[in-house]
């Protein structure tokens, strides 16, 4: 009895659906007649057309408020972050000395990264600037006048420049180079007219022990003021970011070493508790030797 009832209602449901999809009596497709569908489609075409136009207009008006060369606000970028190259997953620099493949990808990345720093390219595109002072280029009445950049030659990176280096930045010998760079921030006068440098250390005492010696290029990890300020990608086309290379000479092998590098500059705080990369960078170094 009950089953019969259900079956019937099941058939009814199918029937109702059929009638909903196409009702031959009223010529309704999905509950609407052809004209009704036409109206609906036309309406939504017009309505959504209008909404798109309205949104585009407001977006256009909004974009008029932002300039091409400097962002309107830079409050979030008060402290530039530090970053390392090679860029690795989770910032773990792991080198299996015997396993070429493990570090070859780093080497490839570095080759590519350092290519614009080649002396020839730098000489061709950029100026030789006076070290120790900011390279300011005011507009002088000409709006958005294109800016020149200062040379940072690859040779300045010494043993880490990788030029004619059979050890592949030291990766093949377990003495890897890690490059430290500071995030670009437009119109940021890093160092507040005083010299600044990058220093690295083991995060904890045991890390310091395991880290061993390292050398920095340019010497002392200095970053020169002439690379600042940065004027933005559009007008400061050939801007070359200054780098500091750190070559770790005798890291205790087969141990994970936590390294932290920070910048010492008068106007860059490095103790932000929330932002672990403000003015500093922490990475793991592990040299596996058999």
């Amino acid at each position, binding site marked *: 009895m009950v089953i019969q009832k259900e079956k019937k209602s099941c058939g009814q449901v199918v029937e109702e659906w059929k009638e909903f999809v196409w009702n031959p009596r009223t010529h309704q497709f999905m509950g609407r007649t052809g004209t*009704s569908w036409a*109206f*609906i489609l036309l*309406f*939504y075409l017009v*309505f959504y057309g209008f*909404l798109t136009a*309205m*949104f585009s207009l*407001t*977006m256009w008006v*909004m*974009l008029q*408020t*932002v300039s091409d*060369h*400097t*962002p*309107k*606000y*830079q*409050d*979030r*970028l008060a402290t*530039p*972050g*530090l*970053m390392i190259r090679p*860029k*690795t*997953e*989770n*910032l773990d620099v792991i080198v299996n000395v015997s396993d070429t493949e493990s570090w070859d990808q780093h080497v490839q990345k570095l080759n590519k990264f350092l290519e614009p720093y080649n002396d020839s390219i730098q000489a061709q595109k950029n100026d030789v600037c006076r070290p120790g002072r900011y390279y300011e280029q005011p507009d002088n009445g000409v709006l958005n006048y294109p800016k020149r950049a200062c040379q940072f030659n690859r040779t300045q990176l010494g043993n880490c420049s990788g030029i004619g280096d059979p050890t592949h930045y030291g990766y093949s010998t377990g003495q890897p180079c890690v490059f430290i*760079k500071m*995030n*670009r*921030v*437009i119109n940021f006068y890093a160092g507040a007219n005083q010299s600044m440098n990058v220093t690295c250390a083991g995060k904890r005492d045991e890390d310091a022990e395991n880290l061993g010696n390292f050398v920095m290029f340019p010497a002392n990890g200095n970053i020169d003021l002439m690379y600042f300020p*940065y004027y*933005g*990608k*559009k007008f*400061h086309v050939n*801007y070359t970011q200054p780098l500091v290379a750190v070559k770790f000479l005798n890291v205790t092998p087969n141990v994970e070493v936590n390294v932290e590098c920070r910048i010492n500059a008068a106007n860059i705080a490095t103790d*932000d508790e*929330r*932002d*672990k*990369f*403000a003015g500093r*960078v922490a990475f793991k170094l592990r040299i596996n030797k058999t």
Partner: protein
Amino acid sequence: MGLSSTRAAELLARDGPNALSPPKQTPEIIKFLKQMVGGFSILLWIGAFLCWIAYGIQYSNNMSSSLDSVYLGAVLVLVVILTGIFAYYQEAKSTNIMSSFSKMIPQQALVIRDSEKKILPAEQLVVGDIVEIKGGDQIPADIRVLSCQGCRVDNSSLTGESEPQSRSSEFTHENPLETKNICFYSTTCLEGTATGMVINTGDRTVIGHIASLASGVGNEKTPIAIEIEHFVHIVAGVAISIGVLFFIIAVSMKYHVLDSIIFLIGIIVANVPEGLLATVTVTLSLTAKRMAKKNCLVKNLEAVETLGSTSIICSDKTGTLTQNRMTVAHLWFDHQIFMADTSENQSNQVFDQSSGTWASLSKVITLCNRAEFKPGQESVPIMKKVVVGDASETALLKFSEVILGDVMQIRKRNRKVAEIPFNSTNKFQLSIHETEDPGDRRFLLVMKGAPERILERCSTIMVHGQEQPLDESAAQAFHTAYMELGGLGERVLGFCHLYLPADKFPETYVFDTDAMNFPTSNLCFVGLLSMIDPPRSTVPDAVTKCRGAGIKVIMVTGDHPITAKAIAKSVGIISANSETVEDIANRLNIAVEQVNKWDAKAAVVTGMELKDMSPDQLDEILATYSEIVFARTSPQQKLIIVEGCQRQDAVVAVTGDGVNDSPALKKADIGIAMGIAGSDAAKNAADMVLLDDNFASIVTGVEEGRLIFDNLKKTIAYTLTKNIAELCPFLIYIIVGLPLPIGTITILFIDLGTDIIPSIALAYEKAESDIMNRKPRHKKKDRLVNMPLAVYSYLHIGLMQALGAFLVYFTVYAQEGFLPSSLINLRVEWEKDDVNDLEDSYGQEWTRYQRQYLEWTGYTAFFVGIMVQQIADLIIRKTRRNSIFQQGLFRNKVIWVGIASQIIIALILCYGLGSVTALSFTTLRPQYWFVAVPHAILIWVYDEMRKLFIRLYPGSWWDKNMYY
């Protein structure tokens, strides 16, 4: 002699106390759990579990994964539990009002036990106890009368018979309900005394049986519960289908399953209006409070709306439509009918009182009356004084008190020397008095009773103060008047008097009422007087209003058809120009069968006719006639009538007061019990209690119910709108890969923070037009959430809102350095923790935390964008058809409270808690608060346009698709 205490204790232990077991209550914990899993809670539970599953997967991959999803899951569960507790609390609060109401006063009974008279609580009675009852007592159990003196009981709460029933010790009928020697539990003894033996106690009494019958009638879902279920289904359907769709899209776009699960959670949370059900509960209870002020006490919150969708009201007559007291309506003397004032205070008696006949008549009325005011009521208005005596004597007493002044004094001056009280065999009442005129030594004999019996005893008639022989023409005039008054459904009494000649009846004469040593014929007829239980003065208006509102009012009464019809006519249940089949037959002088029944609009159906009817015939009557009166119906038939109405797809409201009404009250879509006259069983079975027993209060209730339905629509439309604005970010995030525009927690802050008070504020909105001028909503066609409402909220306003909010979001990002074009497909890089030098449109590089902070600023901006546009949304939702300016922007002050609350909450979140990063709110620049304003204005303008076209072209394509 009675039972011994020990035996009684044994029986008490066997049968249990003599009390009705209260209706089964759902255990509190079940009620509570129901709130936890009802409605959207299930979806949120799913969301919470998905969160934890996501965390589980994350944890198994990476031990140091963040606890964000655990927190989110916990927050979702918290939301479910809090809203559940809230709904439970609201529900409990409204039930509490009732339970305090239904508390019974402990009843006492006079019992003979151990050969001693004892007063015991009625609960301790057992079968076999001998109890004594006197006038005014409530019968403590079902009792077989052993002996009695003039005992009369009011069985109205049981059988619906309003006439007092006399009791005797004789067995007169097989049916216990008919026999005269049984008194029933919970009925009252009006007068006399009786001694009886308890034959049934507690639930085994006749009343107990009926009460248990009532709990057997299933509880049907209220219309609003169905509507809300429907709405939950729609929203849940949308949420689940979009969720699953985008889960599939996400997976096929090569997103990690884990991420896809998190998207799914976001979509569910965005789609579910978490605060809405709580809002609905608050809205309903606000209305319930408002109705309680207007004398409708609502037991079940959802019943508030049910009343609004009512299409048939089956109303009692006595007490609901009428004042529930006999009142003198007409007088006939000097061959003329006079009308008396029947209004509630009777202060305006305008008939001619100069005639000598009136002087005599008033004397008869005053003297031939045993009713007396209870002492100590000097300051109480006459109409409110308590009287000892039956209904018609009370009416006469009050009538004469109003016109003549202190009746007791008059009676004292005309000392009563003999009296024969009314009895059913001779059908008259007689008394003999000394007159107050000291010069007149004659005795005055006054008599009243059934008019034809009185007339038989008269030989003369008084006209203009002069006695004239009662000739053929005078008798004819009497009969005409009698018929006319009887035809009005009134109870007619005749009055006559005789001055006994002083020579035959000297002052020392001893009257013997048994021997009747005085004349009782050849009296002088003075006049007629008719009484009726008059309609309440507010009822005719209320009935007219019902009619305008498309509500059919059916009178169901135990009274005589003629009386019922007369009252129905006077209150408008049968309108002035409509006729019954019988009326037409009378007018055309043809047989009833020959009348075309389609000509008649009204029908009076008696219980006898109803008994022989098949359900089909009843359906036909209910469908054919628009004005129906059921007379002489038994309470059981009320249930049949209610079922008949429900077969017509009507939402039926039923009023009732007696215990025997409880099955019908329970069966009805909304049972309305009388607060004053109602029995506890009726109040228990009902959904609503009418505190003043007044029909007009039902109509105000209907108005409130309709208003709340409209306002709930507005609330839901308001709440649904922003769901799209909350959902779009997730969809865009998945497909276009923008950094997430709004976080799940932020969404909860909208749903449960800024939006709550405004959506409640809509409950205070006044009606747009006269809601009592339209048909009741069809329970299957006029849904709370219909297609146009969903489409308009989701695809029109919701979309505009989403665009406006995105504008704010893009503005924040662009002004910080990320132009809109750079955001596309940025998501993956953006969210990588080890990318700390992500380049923006200007070549600057961002650390993860800097980006995170910007993302939170984006959340805040999107939140503010939605909030600003929700203000516009709130304003447009004030009306569905009228322009806001017609409705008055400032008429509903609560809306402005809502808007203020919205802004203040947003300000607190943004500036007060801006530093608490756990909530992902940041301090927003003040100008961003205004970015969405153009879109807010657009929303308002667009909606005004929609309403304008709806008003201009009613019934058009636009109207059909745009009016929700």
